[in-house]
């Protein structure tokens, strides 16, 4: 049976139920977990992105702030941290934070990003050194850059036990046709793409395809790099926020994303410990149903 958007949304409550038994295993009871289809492993449905926010270079004061954000993230039950060689010093800053915080539970999501396929192995090793981890949980080909060279390497690394999951990423809907083709033709554990209450193109094809192919989905740019929450900051939170237990626009936006059953986790970035706690608190039922999702989207468009 082809999986349509309607069908997916009908399945949403079932998906949430399916995730319930895993919650205790993946973090404190308050953090909703979602299952990685290819393995059955559950991960917290809100992670931590590092684009811009963790690119603070050697600045000791800003590195300490990033470590504090990570400490708050892990304390609140988070585990998925996402970075990339494209993000300047972010990998080194994540590694510095990990060395400070020493989390018990980490799901490390890194990327390979180089136009020279042959340089991929050295770049991955360099990233691993920056993070200070024995191996990555997830390695993805960033923005499909030279994916034909990188993806076979990642798949071979997975077979050799050097990485647990492999995937590809895109942002803001770029190279959609090729992205879809790779999702259909290759064996992927994860994809990462842009999806939020205003940028919903992924609902048409990529999210149903991910569900159909059993591919976990990480969602980037949930707040449009902060532009969305800044735009909404002055608007009062509508009455429906109470129905889904959201106390801020950020939580409402994250709950909208997580209410799509094909979504595994959203990975918002922040420089503030209070925001990281607020984001993780959004990974909890109740989530909006189909009708409320449309009301939410209409209200946000109207602001």
């Amino acid at each position, binding site marked *: 049976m082809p999986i349509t958007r309607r069908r997916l949304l009908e399945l949403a409550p079932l998906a949430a139920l399916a995730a319930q038994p895993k919650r205790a295993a993946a973090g404190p009871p308050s953090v909703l977990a979602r299952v990685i289809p290819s393995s059955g492993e559950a991960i917290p449905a809100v992670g931590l992105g590092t684009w*811009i926010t963790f690119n603070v*270079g*050697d600045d000791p004061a800003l590195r300490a702030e990033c470590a504090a954000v990570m400490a708050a993230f892990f304390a609140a039950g988070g585990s998925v941290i996402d970075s990339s060689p494209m993000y*300047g010093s972010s990998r080194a800053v994540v590694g510095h934070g990990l060395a400070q915080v020493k989390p018990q539970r980490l799901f490390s999501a890194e990327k390979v990003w180089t136009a020279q396929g042959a340089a991929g192995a050295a770049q991955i090793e360099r990233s691993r050194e920056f993070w200070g981890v024995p191996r990555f949980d997830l390695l993805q080909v960033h923005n499909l850059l030279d994916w034909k060279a990188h993806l076979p390497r990642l798949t071979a690394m997975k077979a050799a036990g050097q990485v647990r999951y492999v995937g590809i990423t895109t942002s803001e809907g770029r*190279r959609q046709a090729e992205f879809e083709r790779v999702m259909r033709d290759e064996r992927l554990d994860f994809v990462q793409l842009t999806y939020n209450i205003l940028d919903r193109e992924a609902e048409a094809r990529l999210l149903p395809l991910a569900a159909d192919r059993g591919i976990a989905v990480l969602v980037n740019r949930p707040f449009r790099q902060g532009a969305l929450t800044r735009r909404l900051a002055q608007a009062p939170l509508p009455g429906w926020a109470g129905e889904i237990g959201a106390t801020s626009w950020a939580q409402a936006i994250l709950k909208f994303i997580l209410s799509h059953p094909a979504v595994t986790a959203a990975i918002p970035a922040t420089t503030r410990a209070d925001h990281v706690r607020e984001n993780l608190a959004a990974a909890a039922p109740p989530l909006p149903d189909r009708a409320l999702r449309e009301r939410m989207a209409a209200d946000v468009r109207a602001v």
Partner: protein
Amino acid sequence: MPEWWTYSPEDFLMFSPRVYWRMFELGNGALWPLPLAGQVLAVAAGLACLRTGARIATAILAVLWAFVGWAFLWNRYGVVNWAMSYVAPLFALQAMLLALAAADGAAAGRPPARRMIAGAALLAVAFAYPLLAPLSGRPLASAEVFGLAPDPTAIGTLGVLVMAGAGIALWPIPVLWCLFSAATLWTLGTAQAFVPFAAAALAPAAALLWPRPPPRA
């Protein structure tokens, strides 16, 4: 780059304004008291142009471009912006071009007074550049100083080139840097972007408008 039309300048900005301005604060602190020496060198370069010709000023600039390229672009800015690993060698190239010009030292006819004034004004902007920090609500400790930070160094260099009537090879890198920096500052959301942009537009305009006399035989 695929689908290049879908990218905006913001997509290339990979650090926050706070990280950008703190680079200067950390750099000034690490190199203290060199920021004071930078201010002295801005005055020295201007006086050298007015009194003895451009050779000494050009030699000073050669050292400063090498220093800024290494100490700031390569070692500091490059940590948060990988594009600087491609830009820093251009600063080294500019340093070599300036050194060659200083060594060559071909005597040029003294440029027209208006051109001298325009060049001196640009150098004065470079000298006063640290004031932009407090004027923009940032601590003076994060000031961009001639000889340590790329923007005032490039603007001061354009001032010297206007005053000295220097050869065409010395112009592209400072002009391009000012335009690049203006774009970065604009994307960071600061009106300070107009300063390097104006320097990049006005310095070549002054040189074209008031050409120097032919070299003395």
